[in-house]
């Protein structure tokens, strides 16, 4: 068993290579650049392709091209670059193409700054491109998961033939932790039934998202929706000390780590607090969350305006029996919510002395 003490951003590339990723296309941006740096070093070292694209629009269209040829490809970026990628993400979803996009959120909107934020939740989970599409979205909260969930993203992306997004933030990307290397490399997915490899077998295959006929385009959309429905079995989540909790803190990514420490502090003061953390944001672990929250109060911790909290509420509201209020403890602009703030907000929310 090999361990390495590395940045979350670097762990991403190890996960990608063990997944069998053939090519990395990317454009530098803080705080995601270390992913490109690691890729530039390690992809060629193991005989894979690394290319610094001319812009993020290009990066993602390259992902599209590589996927069309049946390759495993990835890119990494942060908000401003992710905005430029929306066009090709929509085309990939429309053409049933797999690929992995890692986005390391920084503060926005606009240029914002390079400090950690989670303000791109809607962009990643709801999609910012055109059309009725969804992406798989996974949210790691450690260097280990930056590696493991990048692998998982490839697996799911090729299973469902749709782009997968690994959603993280500047803090996770920059921090170093121990990574235990994956035990084995992933088997190569079979792609000759749909991809264009440049050989006789795949010559009849066609990659496109155009259906000029409205009924055909509707049928295509119906197929996509059916796929998103099937995808729901892939939900993943984690709970910490929820069993006897009065208050459940909700958070994904780095916020779940802060929530964990806050729960420990509150427990040490005699308050029963637990944490529910979605690992997959799309599909959203709605049943597990509803169960964890049943009969308890809830408060979301996030580095955004409440995008995640609102999404959790939306999921709960689909079933009237499950609907409940969710409090919010947040920061925006690149300020990380502190444990003290969560502790104070929890006490206020619960009317604890």
């Amino acid at each position, binding site marked *: 068993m*090999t*361990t390495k*003490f590395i940045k979350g951003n670097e762990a991403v590339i190890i996960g990608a*290579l*063990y997944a069998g990723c*053939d*090519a990395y*296309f990317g454009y530098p941006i*803080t*705080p995601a650049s270390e992913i490109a740096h690691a890729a530039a070093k390690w992809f060629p*070292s*193991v005989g894979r*392709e690394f*290319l610094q694209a*001319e*812009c993020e*629009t*290009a990066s993602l*269209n*390259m992902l*599209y*091209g*590589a996927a*069309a*040829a*049946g*390759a495993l*490809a990835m890119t990494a970026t942060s908000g401003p670059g992710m905005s430029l990628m929306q066009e*090709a993400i929509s*085309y990939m979803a429309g053409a049933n193409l797999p690929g992995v996009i890692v986005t390391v959120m920084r503060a926005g909107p606009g240029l914002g700054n*390079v*400090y950690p934020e989670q303000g791109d939740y809607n962009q990643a989970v709801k999609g910012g491109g055109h059309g009725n599409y969804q992406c798989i979205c996974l949210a790691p909260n450690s260097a280990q998961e930056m590696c493991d969930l990048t692998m998982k993203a490839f697996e799911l992306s090729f299973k469902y033939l749709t782009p997968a997004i690994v959603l993280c933030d*500047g*803090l996770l990307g*920059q*921090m*170093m*932790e*121990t990574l235990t*290397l994956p035990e*084995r490399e992933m088997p190569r997915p079979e792609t000759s039934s749909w991809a*264009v490899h*440049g*050989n*006789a077998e*795949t*010559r009849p295959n*066609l*990659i*496109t*998202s155009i259906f*000029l006929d409205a009924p*055909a385009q509707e049928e295509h959309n119906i197929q996509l929706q059916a796929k998103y429905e099937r995808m729901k079995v892939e939900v993943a989540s984690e709970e910490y000390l929820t069993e006897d909790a009065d208050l459940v803190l909700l958070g994904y990514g780095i916020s779940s*780590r*802060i929530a*964990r420490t*806050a729960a*420990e502090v509150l427990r040490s003061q005699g308050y029963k607090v637990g944490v529910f953390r979605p690992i997959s944001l799309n599909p959203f672990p709605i049943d597990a969350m509803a169960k964890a929250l049943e009969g308890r109060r809830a408060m979301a911790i996030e580095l955004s305006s409440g995008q995640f909290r609102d999404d959790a509420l939306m999921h709960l509201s689909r079933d009237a029996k499950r609907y409940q209020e969710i409090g919010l403890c947040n920061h925006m602009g690149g300020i990380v919510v*502190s*444990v003290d703030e969560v502790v104070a907000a929890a006490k206020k929310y619960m009317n604890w002395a």
Partner: protein
Amino acid sequence: MKTIQTVGMYPVFNRSGKETRATHYCAGCGHGIIHKLITEAMVDLGIQDRTIIVNPIGCSVFGYYYWDCGNVGAAHGRASAVGTAINRVKKDAVVISYQGDGDLAAIGFNHTFQAANRGEHMAVFFVNNAIYGMTGGQMAPTSLVGMKTKTSPFGRDPLTMGYPTHVCEIFNQLKAPVFIARVSVADTKRIMQAKAAIRKALEIQRDKKGYAFVELISPCPTNLGVNALKAAQFCIDQMEKEYPLGTFRDETANAEVRQPVKGKPSPKEFFEDDSHQVPPAVIDPAAKELRLKFTGFGGQGILSLGICVAEAAREERRFTSWYPSYGPEQRGGSAQCSVVISGSPIGSPAVDHPDVLVCMNQPSYERYIGDVVPGGVAIVDSTVPLEVAPPEGVTVHRMPAIDLSLQLGVPKAANTMMLAALMKLGVTGLQREHLLNALYASFKKKPELVEKNRVLVQEAEKWIEENLLK
């Protein structure tokens, strides 16, 4: 419908579910001729199975109705980026990017230019009809001066709309392209020249020699509002004046043949090296969580000091996290990092209330000393004036890390001095041996520094014994 034998093109075209033998192009359009020329060259050269054509968005968006080879439809303007990637992951494929003037020279110009500059292995066929065909006759980058289109109803005025774009001439400034030519499909003689250029571009792909660019002047009667004959005449009389035909470059004879990359290790072989292995952390509820903060100026080695402590903690099978400040804050200005050492999985890696604070400059002392928990320790460089009193119950040690390292002639080693202080004062609970090993391991790439630092540590420890531990 009677079946006919065809090679390279489908015998019947499956156009949106309807089978037909007519193309979707207007009478007199150049696209059909160009499609045929490409097909013929592809078949003649025996590369049909290997060929992948990137269809653009424009009138030729439906190239895949016709070409019996691999087809990929790209977003508007992105065909050269898409082609780039196909060529990178399928080195044996013959990649063709087929693009109109709006697609290639307006929305996608940079992708086309960059792919040409990188010398991607693909043939780019640039159909210049001086207008946007598919969207109904708007101005293109290649529209002629004075030309009336839907978006230049009074004629293209160069003062506000710029001049016609000469893509071949621009690309001829780049080093990487192997072949650049401009041809026309306006009459039979010209079609024969176009045929030769297309064939050449595909031979270059077949032989893995690099980037080939062929611009094809092509009539668009519908959007010029004239009949087929007049449209062809317009190409010959008007367009060739602006866009002279010819071969701009042919480096085929000198181009190097791309060789496959071989003999690289697998990721498993590459990452699982045989060097010293640190086993994963183990849960130890008895271990008290220790939170440390390292602060100073950028360039003082604050971040690597934190990493050394974290590495030593890993050696003792503790859960460990290291979290730096980064971005503009880190450059020139202050630098700081947080390290958490624990017997169980770590929650927040950010340290707001350190048990141990290491401080190498005044601003960070003043900013962070108040955060240290009662019973905690601060090790502060002696150059920092203690104008702010530490909180009650916090022990402050003064360490001349900067001065000592200067005296010993290694001004960059103040962080080593601080590590010695952490070790000697025993504030991390980590073993001396592990901290030292972590320090030496950090000089893996500069082994000469190991010996130097050994001496520095000795000197620092001596000073601490004589001054702090008495």
